[in-house]
């Protein structure tokens, strides 16, 4: 029996050692962070998400989205995340202080989502020109060559979306296809979420990349937007309804095999709306003092336009 006590003490001690080192001390270091704020309390980042977005996080967790999608951007020396325009800067602990659970993810069978909300087009553009956008939209094709050849890609932004980073708004109003030279290289390296779009689909009818309509369609029929996608379809997040009078405003515009039978429409249910609200709220682009921002240099301001 003499060895028993020292054995138990040793067993306890070694685990306590690792617990203190990997759970307790980090908690002292980064376990009580506050949002970053200006001196006068404005411009707080991050902020807790809205009710729908929080519920959307529940839906995200319940359906295991984090098993394929990560939500962390690595620094430029550690991976190609920033080159892929998944973020302007690496993620920092402060980005996640209101996340419960913090869905960092550890596999990427799907692209990183930390800034998927930021990469959405501005609302006005998405609403105004869902059809016209498709031609300007994700020409970042699977192979680099056609993408560089496409000058219309990621056309310079109109004044109203001055706040968007250039790579984030491929769905520009087709009115001003003056591509600035700095943006084509970005187009090549863009997220490539849907390389097959312009080829496979006709320009009309495809929602703007990462807009809410795009997300709904992507959840319902991923391969209608990108034939190379490996994502399962989440049709149970949608309802199939008889069209009464007029089609609903948020009914999905589907074609081919995905479209419902005549007289029916597909609308997202509340879980789908919350999930998309959550996705649209994912935005880590706000600069943090402790992290270097790797934003690509802004193109020289053309007269009347100066993207941020």
């Amino acid at each position: 029996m003499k060895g028993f006590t020292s054995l138990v003490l040793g067993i306890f001690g070694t685990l306590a050692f690792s617990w203190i080192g990997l759970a307790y001390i980090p908690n002292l270091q980064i376990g009580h962070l506050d949002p970053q704020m200006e001196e006068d309390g404005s411009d707080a980042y991050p902020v807790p998400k809205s009710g729908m977005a929080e519920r959307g996080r529940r839906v995200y967790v319940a359906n295991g989205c984090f098993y394929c999608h990560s939500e962390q951007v690595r620094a430029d020396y550690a991976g190609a995340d920033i080159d892929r325009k998944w973020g302007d800067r690496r993620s920092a602990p402060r980005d996640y202080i209101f996340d419960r659970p913090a869905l960092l993810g550890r596999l990427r069978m799907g692209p990183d989502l930390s800034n998927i909300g930021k990469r959405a087009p501005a609302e006005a553009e998405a609403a105004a020109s869902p059809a016209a956008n498709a031609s300007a939209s994700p020409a970042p094709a699977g192979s680099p060559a056609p993408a560089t050849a496409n000058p219309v890609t990621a056309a310079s932004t109109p004044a109203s979306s001055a706040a968007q980073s250039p790579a984030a708004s491929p769905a520009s109003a087709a009115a001003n296809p003056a591509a600035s030279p700095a943006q084509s290289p970005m187009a090549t390296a863009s997220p490539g979420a849907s390389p097959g779009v312009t080829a496979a689909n006709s320009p009309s009818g495809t929602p703007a990349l990462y807009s809410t309509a795009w997300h709904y369609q992507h959840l319902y029929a991923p391969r209608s937007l990108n034939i190379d996608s490996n994502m399962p379809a989440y049709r149970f997040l949608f309802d199939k309804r008889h069209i009464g009078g007029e089609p609903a405003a948020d009914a999905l515009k589907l074609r081919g095999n995905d479209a419902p039978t005549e007289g029916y429409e597909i609308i997202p249910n509340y879980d789908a709306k919350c999930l998309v609200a959550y996705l649209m709220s994912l935005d880590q682009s706000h600069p943090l003092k402790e992290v270097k921002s790797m934003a690509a240099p802004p193109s020289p301001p053309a007269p009347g336009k100066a993207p941020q």
Partner: protein
Amino acid sequence: MTSSSSTPESRPRQGMDYGESEEVQQVHAAIQREKREPRVGLEPLSIWLIAVYGLAIFFGGAYLGRFSGTFSGDSLDPALVPAAKKAAAAGPGGGQQAAELSPAERGKKVFLANCATCHQATGLGVPGQYPPLAGSEFTTGGSRRPAMIVLKGLQGPVKVKGQQYGSAVMQPWESLGDQKVADVVTYERSEWGNSASPVTKEQIAALRKELAGHPASFNEPEILGAPNEDLPGGEQGAQQQPSAPPQGSAPPSTPGAQPPKP
């Protein structure tokens, strides 16, 4: 289901008779043939194994020391970040932290976020609607007037650079905070060919107190009634100007450079 698997007679009894119980089960064959419980030998450690230990400790320790940054909570990068990559990324335009921006650069961000919608990023305004800031007598004169306008807003007809404006109302921007107001006024006064003295947040704070009792917006006569002077207390920012503000309408010109804020 005791060891009644095979009939008793085919199994040699061990001849046990401990008197403890009659039902001492037949020890089935699996146990009979079992070897004794495991025990441990006492071979000494080989020197090669100790060499392996030493190597592991060395490399593990070296790795820990080299790639742990500063062991602090905000050191997210391991120490060895390839310098070339960092320099390239920190090159044109990107890579600047907020703390290192100059007042004019900060002011530019404020301007683009708040003012450019009307006054345009070029500072040229929109004819008939929004007055220009480039070359405007208001921005290039003393810093008091533009600071007043930014803080409290302006409404009613106003003449800028010989042109008449008046259809739009400029809102007050008090909510921006002293630093941001100072930065944006500094920016206006140094951009687009303007070169007027910068403004500090202390000056704005003082001005704010001064104007505390004033109702929302100014109009042109009130602005023109204010002295066309720099705000007092600009010793921190101004390169050449002494603390006493100059009289008269001649704008004190500070050639070019904006002093970097620490």
